[in-house]
């Protein structure tokens, strides 16, 4: 059984909400097709990276998995349940880190996690969940109104992990996290996957998904334009990209320059900026670490994702491109 199964799903937003809008002359341009006839499935136990630029329809798709928004047509099944009619059953077995959420300023971190545990009728230890995401007891007892974006994100992840869910749905999980936090996030994703959970997470930064995903799908303008393993994806792209590496210690720059596929190397204090082909990136990281330095974190320039889109859409018949810009 597939953990997630979408069949011909379309979501059109009719922009008719609000008094003010209803006073304006309406036309078809007011309707936005956020997701257009989307079909794909994610197998149980798989780690699926959901990529695409902002506005591609990723969050709308995720919101349909959670019944935050309802599809205009098509069917969405999650963990064998109808995502709309049996949404509570879905969410009982799903941990969610939503996009555009906010925390309850006046409640403490621990109260948030306790609320999640209570709602899921689970028996987790709140402190254990909080320490897994890197929130110490002092922080947990504070009201979250004083939390930074990164701490809120950790807290929401702790809530998502409550009840050992069979499926984790994470919408842009690394946003607001510093490089170390982003790496911890990836470690948690791996641990959950090893436990047997299916992980579905979205990102607009390729670097965050390639390290953990079995498979990725790329959304653009409401459609899935590619669905492949990271390896398969990489092999189809030979565009130069920029790799930014935060290093502790001195990196052997000459060794990096000597690698195949590397076109430029610049050092700026603790940060290396390396121009290279996509498939050279792991070799660059290895070379830096082999030279005695430690890689604290790395990211590829987000432009590389744009390059991938171009690579995937080049030669496409532009006539069937949806005329949507919102």
């Amino acid at each position, binding site marked *: 059984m597939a953990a997630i199964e979408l069949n011909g799903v379309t979501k059109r*937003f009719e922009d008719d*909400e*609000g*008094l003010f809008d209803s006073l304006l002359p309406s036309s078809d341009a007011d309707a936005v097709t956020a997701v257009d006839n989307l079909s794909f499935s994610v197998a149980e136990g798989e780690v699926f990276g959901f990529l695409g630029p902002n506005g591609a329809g990723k969050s709308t798709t995720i*919101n349909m998995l*959670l*019944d*935050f*928004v*309802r599809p205009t047509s098509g069917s969405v099944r999650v963990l064998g349940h109808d995502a709309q009619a049996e*949404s*509570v*059953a879905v*969410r*009982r077995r799903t941990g*969610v*880190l*939503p*996009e*555009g*959420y*906010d*925390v*309850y300023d*006046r*409640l403490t971190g621990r*109260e*948030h996690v306790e*609320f*999640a545990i*209570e*709602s*899921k009728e689970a028996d987790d230890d709140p402190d254990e969940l909080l320490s897994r995401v890197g929130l110490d007891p002092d922080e947990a007892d504070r*009201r979250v109104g004083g939390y930074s974006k990164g701490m809120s994100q950790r807290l*929401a992840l702790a*809530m*998502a992990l409550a009840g050992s869910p069979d499926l984790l749905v994470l919408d842009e999980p690394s946003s607001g996290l510093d490089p170390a936090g982003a790496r911890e996030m990836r470690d948690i994703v791996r641990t959950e996957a090893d436990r047997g959970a299916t992980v579905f997470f979205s990102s607009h930064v390729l670097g965050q998904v390639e390290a953990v995903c079995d498979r990725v799908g790329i959304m653009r303008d409401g459609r899935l334009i590619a669905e492949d393993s990271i390896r398969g994806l990489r092999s189809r792209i030979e565009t130069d990209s920029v790799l930014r590496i935060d290093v502790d210690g001195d990196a052997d720059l000459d060794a990096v320059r000597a690698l195949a596929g590397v076109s430029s190397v610049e050092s700026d204090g603790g940060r290396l900026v390396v121009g290279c082909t996509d498939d050279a990136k792991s070799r660059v990281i290895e070379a830096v670490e082999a030279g005695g330095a430690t890689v604290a974190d790395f990211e590829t320039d987000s432009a590389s994702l744009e390059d991938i889109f171009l690579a995937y859409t080049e030669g496409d018949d532009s006539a069937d491109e949806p005329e949507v810009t919102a």
Partner: protein
Amino acid sequence: MTLESVARKDFRDALRSRWLLGLTLFFALLIGGSAALFYGVLLSGAGANSETLFGLTTAPGGLFNFSYAGMLGFVLALIALVTAHGSLIDERESGTIKLLLSLPNSRRDVVFGKLVGRTLVVIISMLVGFIVALFAMLFTGGQVMFVSYAGQVALSGLLATAFVSIGVWLSATSASQRQALFGTVGLYFIFAVLWSTVATGVPRLVNWVIEQLGLTALTAPQIVQMRLFIKYLNPLRAYETLVAELYGPAVAARLFKAGLAERFAIESTFAESLPFYFTGPFILAILLAWIVVPPLLGYRAFEKTDL
């Protein structure tokens, strides 16, 4: 039971924001303070009972009417609306609703959990006010008519619940906080100010239409009955007349605040037999309908909404 956990979380939030504390102080001062002032200072040692303040004050001939319940109803309705009108839309605008609905809470749990949480906030603070007033009366030598006093407290609780329900309904159907606020102000204005104009205007309009059609115009008692019926569809007025009935006969309670001409037109008819749609149980049913129907409508709208 996730409805319960939603309600508990909501209540705790009100506790933390000191909203509950503020409301409690407010009602302690308003209800308790007015009782202390009335029985302790104004009527000191006059051997008054609880009806003197909480019952009806009608000057001979109906020239002057005042009811404490009428005044308290205005305040309770406003407080309840203010407490409830943001219950759902605030969470939608801030995004906390996504956290709430990421967990296995159904939208029904959220709407009715909010209703329970906010109702408790208003009722608990109101109860403290009535308890302070009770002690004020006991300590200043006022005689407490316990049965009618308890009835008045219970009816006040129902009125508060009705307006929390209306607030939750507004919150569930609004697309923005501003819409919810305008809706709240507008509805309050209708219930508190505009309703009597409507109650007077509708029978006149009906009569005008009938005349245009060349049919027999309504009789004066019929017009008065229609006006009264519309009047008591307003939860504020339903509450006031039910409280009045605690202190006197039903007919007097229905005609409380009615003008002299109206009394002449209908009092004898009512005295013979009160139509069932003016009996206490029927008016109570109207008040209860205001508790039950709005949240159901709100839930139906909220159920269909894209967050």
